[in-house]
Structure formats: C-alpha cells, structure tokens
C-alpha cells in the first residue's frame, strides 16, 4: 500500500525537480529542535561522566573514576543505595496501590453503574493539577497541627493515629507515594477501562454459558486480554517512578527530608548536579553525570526487557 503512495512522486520526477526535493525539508524543523534539546544533552551527559569537573568547568579525562566513586565514595554511595531502595519501594507500592485500585475502579465503571461519567471526571481531576500544587496541597493537608487529615482522624475518635506524617522518617516516604497514587489513579483507570472495553463481549458471554464463574472469567479471559493495557501501565509506572522528582522536591525539599528518608535517585541527582548537597565540591557534576548514565541505562534496559517479555506473552496467547 505504501508503494502506491509513492507513485505520484515518481510521476513528478521529470517535470518539477525542485518540488521533489522540497519535501525533504519537512522533517527538518522537528529534527533540529529534537536533536539539539533532547538528543545532544543526553549524549553529552554520557561524555561528561568520564571527566573530572571543577564547578561547571570540565577538567581532565578520568575514565570510569566517577562511576567507581558513585558506588564506593562516602557519603555518595550510601546516598545512592538509600535512594535506590526508596525508588524500588516507590515503584512497587505504586504498582500495587495505584494500579490495583485503578483496576478495580475501571472494572466497576465497566459494569455500567449509574453516575459513571461523573465518576470518571472525579477520578481524573487530580491529574489536571500541577505536581507542585499537588505537593503543596497535601503538605497542608498532612500538617501535624492543623492539617485536615489529623483533624478528620480526631473527629472520628482516632487520635492515636494522628501523626506528623511528613516529619516522621517511618511514614514520610509512604505518604509521598500515596499522594502520587492519588494523582495517578484516574489516568490508570482510563487506560484499564479502554482495555476492558476492547474485550469482545461475545467471549465473556460464551464463557458464562459454558458455566465459568466470576473469578474464572476474570483470570482466564479478562486479565489475559487486558495484557496490552496492563503492559502500558507497567512501563509508564516504571519510567515515572524512576524519574520521580517534583513531588519529593515540593513536599520535602532537595535533601529528601527527614534524614534522607524520602530521597530518590532523581532527587539525589538534582543535588549532585545543582548543589545543595553536602559535597558541593568539584566532583559533583561528574558524579551527577555518572548517576544519570547509570539511571538511564537501568531505565532503558528494564523498559526494553519489560516490553519484550510482555510481547512474548501476547504472542503465546
């Protein structure tokens, strides 16, 4: 079919030569902007990681020294592993809580309950707020003295549960992850709903006629057929959690307070790249670039593996 698309151009060849060439100008503006502001910086970040840095002036080529420092030099290596651990938790909890709840809600709306249009709007609305607004809003709600959450707990006689949610290293990270889930559930719900609605009704009907019970229909028919939307949400959640930065920055600042309990890899990276870190010394830009490369390779590899695995699953079905 695409060969046919080409024929008109072939016909033009003889007569209007310049017009045939003009078409090659079409992708140039997009290509230029994309290459200068996306591709170049990422490639440059890779090369930066092999140099010693003096503030923001490049020093000597040091090979893999920045990478070795990142994993062995204190306090960086501690910060790195701490942030990596927090990041894994961020991803896992988001997968379970955000995507789990979103799936249940999508299923309920799919079952055609009344008010589903209102419900969709209600779930989706938080997604429209800027992450910084979300962060500040919840910071006010979670405030230990006057924040709405503790007040509500008080009204229901659950004073024992009242807490300085963001001030306690035990609860701060979880509070932030749950705020992120609050923000993201509506979007995930819509993706799952689209997946559910694409399942042919006849398949479900046929299974029911054959005597399959509810649980069987869900596990044997609905879940496998929803694999594409589950795959999309898994990949998106993965990428989003490993580059999460804004929410922590808005709620807990660039040090991942309290005591680095909410530190994430991207927050640590921000500290290394733009200071505010205890070590605002000459190695920070090199170390930051090394961290960017490690994080980039990790995200790219995992995303590729995830996509490949899910694709295989789909083919097998």
């Amino acid at each position, binding site marked *: *079919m695409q060969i046919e*698309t*080409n024929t*008109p*151009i072939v016909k*033009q060849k003889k007569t209007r030569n310049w*017009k045939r060439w003009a*078409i090659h100008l*079409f*992708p140039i*503006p*997009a*290509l230029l*902007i*994309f290459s*200068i*502001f*996306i*591709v*170049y*910086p990422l490639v440059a*970040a890779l090369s*930066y990681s092999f140099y010693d840095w003096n503030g*923001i002036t490049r020093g000597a080529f040091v090979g893999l020294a920045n990478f070795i420092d990142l994993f062995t030099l204190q306090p960086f290596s501690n910060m790195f592993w701490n942030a990596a651990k927090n990041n894994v938790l961020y991803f896992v909890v988001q997968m379970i809580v955000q995507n789990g709840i979103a799936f*249940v809600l999508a299923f309920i709306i799919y079952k055609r*309950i009344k*008010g589903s249009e209102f*419900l969709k*709007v*209600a*779930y*989706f*609305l*938080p997604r*429209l*707020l*800027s992450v*910084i*607004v979300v962060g*500040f809003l919840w910071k006010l709600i979670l405030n230990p003295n*006057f*924040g*709405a959450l503790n007040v509500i707990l008080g009204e229901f006689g659950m004073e024992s549960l009242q807490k300085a949610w963001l001030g306690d290293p035990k609860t701060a990270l979880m509070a932030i992850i749950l705020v992120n889930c*609050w923000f993201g*559930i509506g979007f995930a719900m*819509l*993706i799952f709903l*689209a997946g559910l609605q694409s399942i042919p009704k006849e398949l*479900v009907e046929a299974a029911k006629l054959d005597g399959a*019970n509810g649980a069987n229909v869900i596990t044997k028919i609905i879940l496998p057929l929803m694999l594409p939307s589950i795959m*999309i949400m898994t990949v998106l959640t993965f990428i989003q959690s*490993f*580059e999460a*930065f*804004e929410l922590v*920055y808005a709620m807990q600042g660039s040090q991942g307070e309290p005591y680095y309990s909410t530190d994430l890899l991207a927050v640590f990276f921000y500290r290394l790249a733009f200071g505010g870190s205890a070590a605002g010394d000459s190695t920070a830009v090199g170390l930051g670039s090394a961290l*960017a*490369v490690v*994080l980039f390779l990790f*995200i790219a590899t995992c995303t590729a593996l995830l996509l490949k695995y899910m694709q295989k699953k789909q083919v097998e079905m």
Partner: protein
Amino acid sequence: MKQTLWTRPLYYIIAFAFATISLYPIVLMVLSSFKPSAEIFMNPLSFPKNFSLDTYRRLIEEVPFGTYFFNSVFVSVISVLLILVTTSLAAFYIARYTFWWNNFLFFFFLMGMMIPIKLGIVPLFILMKDLGLLNSLWSLIFMYTAGGIPLSILILTGFFRTMPVELEEAARMDGASDLRILWSVLIPLIRPALGTVMIINFISSWNDFFFPLIFITDEMKKTIPVGMLSLFGEYSADWGTLFAGLTLSSLPMIILFFVASKQFMDGLTAGAVK
C-alpha cells in the same frame, strides 16, 4: 457473570468512596482559599463562615500573579503552536513517503519517549547558558517543544496513515505542491488528532515546574508553577493565601477541563494507547 445480591451495592460504595477521596482535597483547597488563616486553624473542614476574597486580593496585590499567568500562557501557547507545525510536517513526511531512512527517522523520534530528558539537565543548563537563553521564556518554549515532539509525531503519523491516498492523488494531479496538499487536504481531515496533540502538550507545558526551576531565576520570567514555589517560601504562615495561590494556579486548567472533559481524558490517554 452471576450478580449476587450484594455486588451492586458494593460497587457503588467503592466507586463513590473513592470519588470522595479524589475530589475532597480539591474541594478543601477551594473552600479554604475563601477563609482567613485564623478560620482555617479553627474549622479546617467546614464551609467558610466569613466568606472572604481577602486572600485573593492579597495574592494579586503582593505577588506578581498576573505576570506569572501571562508567562505561562505565552510559553504554553507558543510551544503548542511550534509542536503542531513541526510535527505535522514531520509526521506527513514519515507517513506518506517511503524513503529508506523514513523508518529510521520514526524510531529516532520515538526513542525520545522512553528517555527521561531530566537526566540531560546539566548539559542542557550549559547549552542554555551558551545560547544566552537562561532566564528567558524561550528556554522553556524550546524544551516543551522538543519534549512534545516524540509523542505528537507518533499520534499524527498514525492518523496520516489512516487517511485515504486518493484525495492527495487527485490534488496532485491538479498540480498542488506537497505543502498545499498537507495544508488544504490533510490538515482539515486530521483535526481530531491535532486537538489531541494540543491538549496533551498544553497540560504538560502548563503544569511543568522542573525546567523553570532550573532555567529561570528572574521573578518577572517565572511561570505559575515556579511562582508557587516562592509563594510558599514567603507566606508559609498565611494558609489562606497559600490555598488561594494553589486554587488560582489550578483554575485555568480545571475550567478548561470542565469545558472539554471528554477531549481531555481522550487526549491524555491517546498518547498511551495508540
């Protein structure tokens, strides 16, 4: 599936309980913005007793909110326009011609969707400095345009491919140039896709605060999200004003959403599904 007696009510309970969790913080934000701080402390949950616009007056008088607002509009509108023009051209080229490098070009652009550009922020900062774009709204415009290109090309290319070729061929017989065909024949046909591209990119550029956080320090060049950041530094005890700031910065998006909620939801998810 067999409906037992209790499943329906259970569905309603879960669905509306979660709607409350979703909406309540936003309602609280709007209600609190009409209360003086003292009342927020005393009755954080109730409706405002002394309904007052004082917080908004203070916000607009003491914070250059109008400037932030103008900057946000300027940056978002120009980047969305740039995205529409550049990606229509590129997607048309990719979808309608089959030179050997076209597939390569397509995947080159798509790569950008899986790569967190934040990781290139140090070279970007230096690049912007060298280009003299630090503290300029153009640094943001270029970033949002570049960042929006991959997804927009994916969506538009998909749409161009579904258009019947006959229309173009007819126009070509009449001697129309490629640009003419794109502008007069195809663009009107793919209007829904352009709407989707517009909404996705408008939301992300309006709400972003990472790039202005790094590129903008001049108070008069700040967009609304970074403006909020300084607001929280200065008014940390004045809860009423803080809530007013949060409400005011979310309002344009919420109003637009209520005008076209379906398009918004379709738009944002289109990027993921298609």
